[in-house]
């Protein structure tokens, strides 16, 4: 199995004259937790939007497991084994919690195993017993967990989490960190995160995006020590 699960070459997004991403060359090592960080407006969400196909790229290539998927629509990319959780919670508020997860699982799970799969997935994120509640009635934190459950239920090989801890209470963040740690090994995780505590606790590898370009990438310690990163993002340096 190749050690790189996802690769982008020259990925660029222009909004009119404004470049959100410029020639992003990026490699995502398989089986690890990679964090994508960068200041607001650095182009993180645009970048993963182009990876998943939600946002059409102006130019460049996306290669997933050795296959060029640049021309595929979003749903076909997801069906290849990616899962994406939205930065702004996107669930089915009018359906019950179990059906939300079942919709995510049904594409890859046969009917006989569906109920068990839904139950297990809900238990994993700590929503056991809430299956019959209307998803829209859940608290914000629980809706975030449901969103993650919907990602897990797809058994993705690449799991992209777009600011998953945004708006969570501290206790919920701790639970989230445990959950993602538990996933390591099963899936490759690309984590877009603002909370540096979470990043430092979870990430094996960090990529820093600034003004639509890769500024640095490497192990957490190296990134923490990198002066360019400090000035661009961490705000603790001598810039």
């Amino acid at each position, binding site marked *: 199995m190749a050690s790189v699960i996802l690769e982008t070459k020259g990925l660029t997004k222009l909004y009119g004259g404004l470049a959100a991403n410029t020639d992003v060359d990026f490699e995502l090592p398989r089986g690890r937790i990679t964090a994508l960080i960068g200041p607001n407006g650095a182009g993180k969400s645009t970048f993963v939007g182009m990876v*998943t196909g*939600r946002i059409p790229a102006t130019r460049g290539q996306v290669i997933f497991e050795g296959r060029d998927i640049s021309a595929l*629509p*979003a*749903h*076909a990319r*997801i*069906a290849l084994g990616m899962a*994406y959780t*939205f930065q702004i919670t*996107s*669930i*089915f*508020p*009018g*359906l019950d919690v179990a*059906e939300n997860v*079942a*919709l*995510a699982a*049904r*594409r890859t799970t046969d*009917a006989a195993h569906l109920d068990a799969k839904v139950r297990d997935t809900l238990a994993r994120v700590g929503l056991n017993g809430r299956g019959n509640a209307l998803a829209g009635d859940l608290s914000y934190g629980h809706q975030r967990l449901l969103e993650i459950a*919907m990602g897990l239920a*797809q058994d993705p090989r690449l799991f992209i989490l777009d600011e998953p801890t945004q708006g969570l209470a501290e206790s919920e963040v701790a639970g989230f960190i445990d959950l993602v740690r538990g996933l390591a090994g099963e899936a490759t995780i690309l984590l877009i995160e603002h909370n540096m505590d979470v990043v430092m606790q979870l990430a094996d590898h960090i990529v820093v995006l600034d003004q639509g370009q890769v500024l640095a990438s490497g192990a957490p310690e190296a990134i923490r020590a990198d002066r360019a990163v400090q000035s661009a993002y961490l705000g603790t340096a001598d810039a």
Partner: protein
Amino acid sequence: MTDRLRTDLLHLGVIAALVVLFLTLPTYYAGNLSRIMVLAIYAIGYNLLFGYTGLLSLGHAMFFAAGMYGYGLTAQLAGVPALPAFALGILAGAALGLVVGALALRTAGVAFMIVTLMFAQAAYLTILHFGTYTRGDEGFVVPSEARIVFGIDLSGETERFAAALILFALVLLATGRLVRSRLGRTLVAIRENEERTRMLGYDATRLKLIAITLSGALSGLAGAAYALLFGYVGASFAAVPYSIFPLLWVLLGGAGTTIGPLIGVFFMFYLIDTASGITLAYLLIVGVALVLLTLFAPQGIAGLIKRRLPWLP
């Protein structure tokens, strides 16, 4: 009891109730039942697209008319026997659904409403344009030999009721299964949050096209059945009111419920019937009743019931 068993029992109960009504009601009311059931099939077809998939079409009369003319014209002009002509009617509805869907689904929301409305107007004008064959507004009477199925003449009151009931029962039971199937649940997901459905790996565009094709087929079936059972084909069934009726029936009865369409047709039918018995200004009464219902039961009548019985399909 599982939800699936409950659903089947409910639907069988509704069908049994229709039989009991037919046997016990005076002839006039019993005769209305056949019409109500055929129109309810139309409403079920509309509901599949509007209530379950969340696509509001303002042009469904074209699918109803496609079925009606698909059956009626082949019987009238080519002398095709009842059953194959009927099948052609359903096929015409499905094919039109597929073609219109492929074009109209490039739009969404209000634009989708306008595009379907325009297609339906084009269909209506096409029928008028080929007046030599379609007899336009005046319409034509279906030849009596094309109303005989398996040696049974469907113009008799009892035979007509039996045929309408069989068709309605099949459609109702099939819809009950469909909405609980993987396809049905994914259509609901599209209604609830299309972007999320797409990002769960479902091809939403393809699924919406399937929904509009199925909806066209059911509407076409209803149109063909209407011509088969009542023996008349006319352009008024392709006009704007017949695109608005199914929307009203489904809204009143309960969008996104299997029994809502039947309830809606029943309610509208007898609301108009009763009101017109009281005053010439019956549309005023109908209008007020509709406004009240929309204000106090926006989910429709079956929607009210569903609040008590959440398992309702």
